[in-house]
């Protein structure tokens, strides 16, 4: 079973067009909810029942997040979609926007209805010009068809939706940095609490969900929370889009049930390139601690299984590394990324990511010192949990994962001033 939720229209020609989406029952759920005036609480209950957890990486239960909004509080409320897809290895939301933008729009309208919001923004990363144009076109079509605007289909419910384009900053994927960015500021995360459900965009109650989460809503409501939940496994309801890349034959996005064995996913992705041996897998975007290949081949793709192996499912971005890769070089590149993308607000992250990068980099370039591995453990430990947002942890976790599983490779680099991969 594959492509049942967000990618269910992928087999159609030009699936991003309204008529194509409607040919598969698109916007029927919205019509039903608006005509029957479904009580919003019922919608939230259904989403809770589905077991849907935030698909951006944090895995927070979506229905629970929605229930934090006081729907009857006076004033404006907002639905914000996080399409600032930037966790290295992740490329699924791009496909949802390119190929099924209407399902995302329908999901956002339904989310607005459920929490009492009449305005929404989809924050699309600035580099995603093609997806942005697709989304803009879909918005126009939806507006013309009466799915956006005032008094939708005569229901008395208003909903207006716009896209907001980013301009290159990984940190804006953090939900409060994203809100700051929509407000026209540097994308620096806010202290929490208050959480966005109480003080969000422009100080108004706001829910922020990932693209995949919101695009899943129409199907969850159409077929029922239980249907969705049953696709997956315990604690990991539904199917999930996995972006799989690396040293494999057929990289791409696969929408498959949670709990699918990794070995099956790898097979779908064409297996290892050139028949090489699998060395390691980064299972959930580059901040997820690495898992050795042998161990990964025994795991299933769901929150609990990957957490049980000391890593996280994150955004479902799976990077497969074969045995020609030097793990020091891989970590060097990842540490550079987090250092580059730290917003600079908190000292442990701003300084710590620089330390991590410089120390890993000197090991990679043959300048490593004997005390460096302990130093890396120490610095990583001093960043974790001590920053306003999760970027600090995201920088520390891959370092800790690499040292846990591939310490000998780092030690070899320090001792021999060169790489053990290919050293024979």
């Amino acid at each position, binding site marked *: 079973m594959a492509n049942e939720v967000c990618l269910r229209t992928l087999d159609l020609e030009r699936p991003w067009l309204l008529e194509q989406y409607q040919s598969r029952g698109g916007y029927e759920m919205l019509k039903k909810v608006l005509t029957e005036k479904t009580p919003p609480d019922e919608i939230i209950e259904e989403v809770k029942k589905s077991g849907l957890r935030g698909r951006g990486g944090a895995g927070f239960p979506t229905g629970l997040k929605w229930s934090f909004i006081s729907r009857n509080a006076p004033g404006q409320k907002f639905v914000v979609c996080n399409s600032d897809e930037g966790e*290295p290895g992740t490329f699924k*939301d791009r496909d949802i926007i390119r190929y099924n933008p209407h399902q995302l729009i329908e999901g956002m309208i339904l989310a607005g209805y459920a929490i009492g919001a009449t305005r929404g923004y989809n924050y699309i990363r*600035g580099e995603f010009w093609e997806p942005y144009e697709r989304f803009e076109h879909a918005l126009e079509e939806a507006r013309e068809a009466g799915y956006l605007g005032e008094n939708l289909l005569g229901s008395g419910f208003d909903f207006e939706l716009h896209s907001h*384009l980013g301009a*290159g900053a990984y940190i804006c994927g953090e939900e409060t940095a994203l809100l700051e960015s929509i407000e026209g500021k540097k994308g620096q995360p806010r202290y929490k609490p208050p959480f966005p459900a109480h003080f969000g965009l*422009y100080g108004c109650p706001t829910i922020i969900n990932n693209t995949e989460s919101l695009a899943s809503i129409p199907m969850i409501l159409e077929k029922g929370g239980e249907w969705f939940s049953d696709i997956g496994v315990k604690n990991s309801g539904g199917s999930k889009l996995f972006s799989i890349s*690396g040293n494999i034959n057929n990289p791409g996005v696969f929408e498959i049930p949670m709990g699918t064995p990794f070995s099956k996913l790898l097979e779908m992705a064409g297996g290892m390139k050139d028949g090489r041996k699998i060395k390691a897998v980064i299972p959930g975007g580059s901040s997820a601690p690495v898992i050795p290949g042998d161990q990964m081949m025994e795991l299933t793709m769901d929150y609990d299984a990957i957490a049980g192996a000391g890593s996280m499912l994150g955004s479902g971005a799976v990077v497969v590394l074969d045995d020609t890769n030097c793990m020091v070089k891989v970590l060097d590149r990842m540490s550079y990324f987090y250092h580059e993308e730290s917003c600079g607000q908190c000292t442990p992250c701003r300084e710590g990511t620089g330390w991590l990068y410089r120390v890993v980099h000197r090991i990679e370039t043959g300048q490593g010192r004997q005390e460096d591995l302990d130093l890396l453990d120490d610095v990583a430990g001093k960043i974790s949990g001590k920053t306003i947002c999760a970027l600090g942890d995201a920088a520390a976790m891959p370092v800790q994962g690499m040292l846990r599983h591939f310490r000998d490779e780092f030690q070899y680099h320090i001792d021999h001033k060169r790489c053990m991969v290919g050293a024979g």
Partner: protein
Amino acid sequence: MSTSVVKDVIELFNPEVRAEIDRWIAKYPPEWKQSAVMAALRIVQDDNGGWLTTDLMNDVAAYLEMPAIAVYEVATFYSMYELKPVGKHKVCVCTNVSCMINNADTIVEHLEKRLGITFGEVTEDGRFSLKEVECLGACGGAPMMQIGKQYYENLTPEIVDAILEGLE
């Protein structure tokens, strides 16, 4: 006094640029013109051959009724704004993990050799500049690059040559 300010603001940009910025302003609550700053900077940058001058940033500030410093903060925080001239074609190459392990370095070397420049530089004729970028969310097509608004995936040196030759 106020009349002259209004007149000045209207004269800040050409009509097309102004219309495009106004389209973005309309997306946000009336008291939150500032929300359009990211779009406005992109629009004036595109209109200015791909980079922002201090004068342009000041104009955006005046147009959106923001302190100039708040505009500089945004322009320096986000990586897609350029504060010095770039080539007519800004070639952005991803070197993050998925691209790296799919030979992004070969692509970078090839571009450097062909264009005779390295990251952060512009060719003498002003046609190309090279920029190293972080993950662009197209890892399934690694190695990849972006030129202007377009993504180019599954690159080889030969494909890169064909792409560059196809550009004006």
